């Protein structure tokens, strides 16, 4: 019992790294995902193919392999990144692929009359996207985007393999000293659960707020 309490400050510190990794990767993943989604529905077939190849490659390979490629592979071609930037890069590229699919589905779910109405007023494609289409997508995309974030939060544990002292890694370090794996891994699991549940409660709030105009 004492161990649980003693380890808490160290784990709390590591949890900050975990949440930081998840949030930064999410923001970058959202940007990547948006552009990939736009490329995916563009009228230029090369953009479309490139986007499809990206999504297929990322979804078809394990995140762990992607992390190894970034951290151990890229130095061979002269790109050496520290563990944390490597982790963020791999996680963002990974999340970007999944998010692009959520965005694409959301954009395609907006009635095509919305684009036509925007055009009929004389708007350009980017204006219509920014003012009319994307704001309506947010509501549709929110559930899957929220799930991606919670998945991402848990996936950050994988960057422990490249020596980032996030939650899982820091628990392993304590275990190496105390030989109490069951207790500590359960404790770490519980901390992930608290964060996941907390963020999904926030997600529910945001979804409710976003739906307020559509309710009758």
């Amino acid at each position, binding site marked *: 019992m004492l161990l649980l309490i003693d380890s808490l400050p160290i784990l709390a510190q590591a949890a900050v790294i975990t949440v930081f990794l998840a949030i930064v990767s999410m923001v970058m993943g959202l940007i990547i995902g948006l552009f990939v989604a736009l490329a995916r529905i563009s009228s230029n077939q090369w953009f479309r193919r490139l986007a499809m190849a990206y999504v297929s490659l990322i979804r078809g390979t394990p995140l762990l392999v992607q992390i190894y490629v970034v951290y151990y592979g890229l130095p061979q071609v002269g790109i050496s990144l520290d563990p944390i930037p490597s982790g963020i890069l791999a996680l963002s590229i990974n999340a970007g692929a999944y998010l692009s699919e959520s965005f694409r589905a959301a954009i395609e779910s907006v*009635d095509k*009359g*919305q684009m*036509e*109405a925007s*055009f*009929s*007023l*004389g*708007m*350009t494609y980017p*204006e219509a996207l920014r*003012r*009319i289409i994307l*704001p*309506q997508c947010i509501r549709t995309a929110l559930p899957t985007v929220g799930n991606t974030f919670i998945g991402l939060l848990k996936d950050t544990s994988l960057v422990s393999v490249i020596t980032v002292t996030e939650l899982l890694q820091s628990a392993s370090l304590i275990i190496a000293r105390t030989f109490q794996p069951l207790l500590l891994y359960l404790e770490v699991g519980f901390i992930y659960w608290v964060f996941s549940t907390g963020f999904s409660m926030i997600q529910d709030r945001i979804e409710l707020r976003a739906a307020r*105009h*559509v*309710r*009758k």
Partner: protein
Amino acid sequence: MAIIEVSGIHKKFGNSEVLKDICLEVEESQVVVIMGPSGSGKSTLLRCMTFLEEPDAGVVRMDGLEVQAGSPDRYRHKLIRQLRQNTGFVFQHFNLFPHKTALENIMEGPLVVKKASEKEAKELAEELLRKVGLSDRASHYPALLSGGQQQRVAIARALAMQPKVMLYDEPTSALDPELVREVLQVMKALANEGMTMVVVTHEMAFAKEVADRVIFMDDGYVVEDGTAKEIFESPVEERTRKFLNAIAI
């Protein structure tokens, strides 16, 4: 001089040719009603006039601005946007922006396209809402408006760009019968102010009362073109007669 000049418009969807060499001129302040069975090409023609549908061939001249059918390039896109700014378009299903209030829907065009100030756009939008009789609905979202109210907001939204011409694509066919009149009244008032209008509709009474000209289309052709009286009382073509009989029942 005609304010709308459409010539040589062809349009194919796959193998079926929906518009076959359409030519049409509309004078300033004229109200033209286009009728015809479904699939006759009337909506496609209207959509081709603002390039919501790309015609395969032909020329559209709208208030002196000429756009040819052809491959998309930057210059042509710009011309098309200019043409659309001068041409209000009203859709069958209103297509209001659901995430914006009635007032914001009307402000959107002036704000984004004309770069009007928030204050200018708001004043204009308020005036237009008054014009369509919906001042008390300014802060309502579309989901809280009836179909007839939504369509009146949509008309006001189109008018906010201060167009020279208004095009209506079956503006009342998605409405419950008791809501049709309020929309037609707004349209009639606009016609009386001298707005040039092209209306695809099956509303015979509206055509008789408001239209200067009625065009009957079938199978991608303009079959008959005349005053409402001519078309309704003494149609020359057999096809026109058949259609009028069918919708009279």
